[in-house]
């Protein structure tokens, strides 16, 4: 019995399938791309149909806050990549430091999002509000897509914060080491995807003039 357990432990140690783990993560990321892809398709079709309304409605979005959030997410992608780079080099302390920075930047992103959305809601612009229903169809669609797409993206940021917090605990408890950091790498891939989606959301919603 104990022999059997030993054998199981050894095979468990030598059998960590990094390629398989990463492949699974990439396949998951493609389902995410298709999820957001469908929404970008809806956006593209309605922007084509109601381009004037989209332009008018987009003028009301706060470009400054959008730009700040872009810079925050790009920087968080850098700190994420650095966290992995330092665990590869067995610099645990730096890895912890940069992973914590990533989580902190993600939180700042959400705080900005909160202020941005509350300002919109205070102006009476939210789904099914009277102010919005009195406007032309194209503007209703624009703000509908704005809330759904940036909302789904914000949900991904929240999930990212939860995942990265677990990784931080694993890192502190030496469950993630310079020998075995595939968990951190896969979480990083997820985080970069969140950044990638924002790279497209930003010009499509905040930069229409």
């Amino acid at each position, binding site marked *: 019995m104990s022999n059997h357990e030993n054998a199981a432990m050894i095979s468990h140690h030598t059998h960590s399938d990094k*390629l398989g783990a*990463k*492949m699974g993560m*990439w*396949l998951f990321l*493609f389902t995410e*791309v*298709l999820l957001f*892809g469908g929404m970008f*398709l809806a956006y*593209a*079709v309605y922007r*084509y*149909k109601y381009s004037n309304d989209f332009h008018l409605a987009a003028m009301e979005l706060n*470009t400054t806050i959008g*730009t700040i959030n*872009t*810079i925050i997410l*790009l*920087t968080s*992608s*850098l700190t*994420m*990549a*650095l966290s992995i*780079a330092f665990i*590869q*080099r067995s610099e645990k302390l730096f890895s912890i430091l940069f992973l914590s920075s990533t989580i902190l930047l993600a939180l700042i992103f959400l705080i900005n999002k909160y202020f941005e959305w509350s300002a919109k809601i205070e102006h009476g612009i939210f789904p099914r509000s009277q102010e919005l229903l009195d406007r032309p169809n194209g503007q209703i669609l624009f703000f509908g897509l704005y809330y759904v797409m940036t909302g789904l993206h914000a949900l991904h940021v929240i999930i990212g914060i939860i995942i990265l917090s677990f990784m931080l605990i694993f890192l502190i408890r030496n469950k993630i080491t310079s020998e075995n950091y595939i968990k951190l790498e896969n979480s*990083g*891939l997820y985080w*970069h995807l969140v*950044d*990638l989606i924002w*790279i*497209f959301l*930003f*010009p*499509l919603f905040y*930069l*229409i*003039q």
Partner: protein
Amino acid sequence: MEKHNHQIGIMTYIIVWLSLLAFTSITVTIAGISLGKYTLFIALLIAAIKSGLVINIFMHIKFDEPIFKAFLALSGATLVVIFVLTFFDIIYR
């Protein structure tokens, strides 16, 4: 086992980050100038360049197994097909 585990230099990451910030300021500046129908095209082109940097360097796809590139090409091609077919329907309806 660790042999083909390509490590990217810290400086490379910082340079990529600086280029991403530079492209962001370019796209914000260009959005302020009226370029008519080219505005959207340029904004999407810059977004594509930025995502290329993130995918290749931050996500390591450039140094990873070719199978991941094939996955990526497949999902990109799927999106293109969906967009093209939908727009054929919308434009020629």
